[in-house]
């Protein structure tokens, strides 16, 4: 039963969510604090324990050197392409980072790769779901920005594995959102999904046809979102403070974090009010005060939101559609709450966008729908099928450093291409292949995905071998390569060197390492087990109260049992294993005489000629002392 439960996860730049299909509609699973959103913040507390989500937010200000946010920006990226990011975000690279190595971020005296940090967030979501279901969760659908490249997707999949989740599918965020919308609309037509989140922007154009969600074109920018707006506001505040008060806070992590918190609140307020007052306490006790009007705000963010126009136009062009041919426009992502963004979308597509679903939750809800489809479907998901595309062209470097495109962008996935290679020297045993992703003509301008070495080509004169290399992009948008020498029929061995990202071995090691942090999981499991036990013992007690034995107890004994029962009910919802355990043991102890009396009465009844089944003994004697440990796998 529990193995059928596949959850949908939106692993966002700013917030992450987990959802599942409850009967025929998707719902978000709240965390312990009751909040649907788990902020994508990870911190190391004073005892070197990993803290995630709302609880970690205070560390951003208190101990910024031990906390990290927006880690999604670094997924699948290399040292050389994060220079801009490092200027704007307080990411601290590990001191011993080597060029060409996978990024490692310093948290206190420990260092973690972006997939490991994302895994901490995923693990928290997994825990939230397990707490909710009271059962283990091991399979998930995780969403990624549609414009994520192969390395970014692979990094997300690795994060899932490290968190102990089997990632059944990576789904593109805008496509997931369309699933959530499409669930109750079930209509045919062309839809555009405009998704401006915390750190990424996607535009997808889909054709909806009797439950088939066919993506026709997608485009975007994996480094454009609400974060960029925050950074503009932070910069203004820092410049003001330097000018007015003569204080340079650029290198003061704590102060910048305080400013960041204040400007984000201001940004949110400006979506509903015409102006907002910033009032920030500075390190020396001085205050920074400033009023920002919506007009000023809109002028400030214009260049940022303007950057979404190009991708939208390109997507329309690729889909061979005019704006007026779009039937529906859907808004996704927290940044689409900004009125100026809505106005921009409306003018781009000449249509009022849909906003019925919460833009923060719609992606997770769609992921839950896809999770259900993969788990075998239900009535609600019947006939629903997602046909997505690869956002970027796949190419091979050929002579002269030119990219030879073999799978074009916006090709429906899975997609494959076969290329033939030969040798240039007699007896050559290896052939090197450089795989690229991107639209540019020159290999150096495209994203390097991997270098493959075909090894063990049988010795033949130059030009004789015919090596068939098959490139396949799976439904997750991830590339697979296989090769065969056709004349000898020999499978060529492929050595993969991912240009960015972890090798399988590294991921395996991280899974092992993560057990160091798994204490929390063991504790979690104990709590779940104990809660199961609570349910059993409470049920047994209910039966006991209805048995004749109950009447034989003194009123003091009954009062004592009621008190212990109340105590157990009070602690069972808490996350404190020791407290639950203690209350269970106390109630077990306190109902000892009741159990004995029930046993006696059962025996007496049996002696009177009735059989045990007819006697109203309930299962109390068997289940109550000791309560059978709930079977937990």
């Amino acid at each position: 039963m529990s193995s059928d439960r596949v959850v949908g996860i939106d692993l966002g730049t700013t917030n992450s969510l987990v959802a599942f299909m409850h009967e025929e509609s998707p719902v978000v699973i709240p965390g312990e604090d009751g909040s649907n959103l788990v902020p994508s913040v990870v911190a190391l507390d004073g005892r070197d324990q990993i803290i995630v989500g709302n609880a970690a937010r205070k560390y951003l200000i208190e101990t910024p050197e031990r906390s990290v946010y927006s880690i999604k920006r670094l997924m699948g990226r290399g040292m050389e392409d994060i220079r801009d990011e490092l200027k704007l975000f307080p990411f601290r690279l590990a001191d011993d980072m080597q060029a060409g190595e996978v990024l490692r971020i310093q948290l206190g005296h420990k260092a973690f790769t972006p997939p490991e940090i994302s895994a901490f967030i995923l693990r928290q979501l997994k825990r939230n779901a397990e707490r909710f279901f009271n059962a283990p969760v091991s399979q998930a659908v995780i969403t990624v920005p549609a414009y994520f490249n192969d390395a970014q997707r692979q990094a997300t999949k690795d994060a899932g594995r490290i968190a102990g989740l089997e990632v059944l599918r990576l789904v593109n965020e805008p496509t997931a959102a369309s699933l959530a919308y499409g669930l109750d609309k079930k209509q045919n037509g062309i839809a555009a999904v405009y998704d401006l989140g915390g750190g990424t922007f996607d535009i997808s154009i889909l054709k909806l046809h009797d439950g088939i969600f066919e993506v026709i074109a997608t485009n975007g920018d994996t480094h454009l979102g609400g974060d960029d707006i925050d950074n503009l506001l932070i910069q203004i505040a820092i410049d003001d403070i330097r000018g007015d008060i003569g204080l340079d806070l650029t290198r003061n992590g704590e102060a910048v974090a305080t400013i960041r918190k204040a400007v984000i609140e201001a940004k949110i307020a400006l979506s509903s009010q015409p102006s907002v007052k910033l009032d920030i306490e500075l390190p020396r006790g001085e205050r920074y005060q400033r009023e920002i009007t919506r007009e000023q705000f809109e002028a400030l963010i214009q260049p940022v939101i303007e950057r979404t126009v190009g991708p939208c136009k390109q997507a329309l062009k690729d889909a061979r559609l005019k704006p007026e041919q779009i039937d529906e426009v859907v808004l996704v992502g927290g940044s689409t709450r900004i009125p100026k963004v809505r106005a921009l979308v409306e003018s781009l597509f000449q249509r009022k966008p849909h906003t019925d679903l919460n833009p923060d939750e719609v992606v997770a809800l769609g992921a839950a729908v896809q999770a259900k489809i993969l788990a075998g479907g239900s009535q609600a998901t019947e006939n629903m099928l997602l046909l997505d595309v690869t956002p970027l062209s796949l190419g091979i470097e050929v002579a002269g450093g030119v990219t030879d495109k073999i799978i074009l962008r916006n090709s429906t996935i899975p997609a494959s291409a076969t290329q033939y290679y030969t040798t240039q020297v007699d007896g050559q045993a290896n052939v090197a292949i450089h795989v690229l992703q991107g639209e540019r003509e020159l290999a150096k301008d495209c994203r390097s995905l991997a270098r493959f070495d075909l090894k063990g080509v049988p010795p033949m004169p130059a030009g004789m071998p015919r090596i068939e290399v098959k490139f396949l992009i799976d439904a997750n948008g991830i590339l697979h390569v296989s090769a065969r020498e056709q004349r000898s029929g020999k499978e060529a061995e492929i050595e993969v060197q991912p240009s960015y990202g972890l090798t399988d071995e590294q991921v395996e090691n991280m899974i092992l390492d993560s057990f160091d942090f798994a204490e929390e999981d063991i504790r979690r499991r104990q709590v779940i087990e104990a809660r199961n036990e609570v349910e059993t013992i409470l049920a047994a007690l209910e039966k006991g109260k209805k048995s004749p034995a109950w009447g034989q107890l003194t009123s003091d004994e009954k009062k004592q049992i009621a008190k212990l029962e109340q105590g157990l009910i009070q602690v069972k919802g808490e996350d404190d294993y020791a407290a639950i355990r203690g209350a269970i043991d106390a109630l077990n102890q306190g109902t000892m005489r009741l159990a004995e009396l029930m046993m006696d009465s059962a025996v007496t009844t049996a002696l009177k000629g009735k059989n045990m089944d007819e006697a109203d003994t309930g299962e109390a004697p068997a289940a109550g002392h000791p309560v059978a440990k709930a079977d937990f796998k």
Partner: protein
Amino acid sequence: MAETLKSAVPVGGTNGSGCWSCGDMRAAHFCSACGKVQPPRPVDYFTFFGLPRKLNLDVAQLEAEFYELSRRLHPDLAARADRHEQEWSLEQSSRLNNAYRMLKDPIQRTEYLLKLEGVHLEEQSKTATEKARAAGEVKKQVVPAGLLEEVFELNMQLEELRMQKKLGEDDRALVEEVAQAKTALEKKHEALLEELKGDWNQWDNLVDSGSEEDRRKVLDKMVDVLNRRNYIRNLVRDVGEVLEN
């Protein structure tokens, strides 16, 4: 006896992969009884869809069949199946997507047919380039006959426009003239598709019954149309770049 029976069975017409009786290709992709995806067979894209190698094709019908097959072959439906089934589903579904992408577009469909018939457009243009090189005219693009005069004129205008742009001048009349030439070229580009469709009809009539020689002639005609079309497309792109910059 069994042997005789086997050889007597017509194996799905020319494709040899579909249902032995009706030639239905769906039967080759998934089991009609239990719905399981079958291991992929190496067939061309026309055969994959159970279509004859003809160029006139009902795209709406192709789309319907694409959706129908997607509902059977997509890896989403095999997410929890065993590894073999997952692999077959991935493989079958990628072939389906490739086949649909290739056949739904009239130009790609034509180019694909030419390739299946052993005509390689790329090699053709390569030979042309080599010929030009041998004649000492390094890398000169072969201007299709009938366009020579027009292209010569347009290239002169483009050169002038580039110069003016460099100098920051703005000759509205010239821009207008070039833009008009571009529109005319785009019309020609579209007209060539119509011309190509005429060749399709000839080809489709010859597929089953025509002589090898007649078929070769139609193929050559299609190559000629595609070459002219490519030339014009590149020209339109160049003109567009100069106008936009």
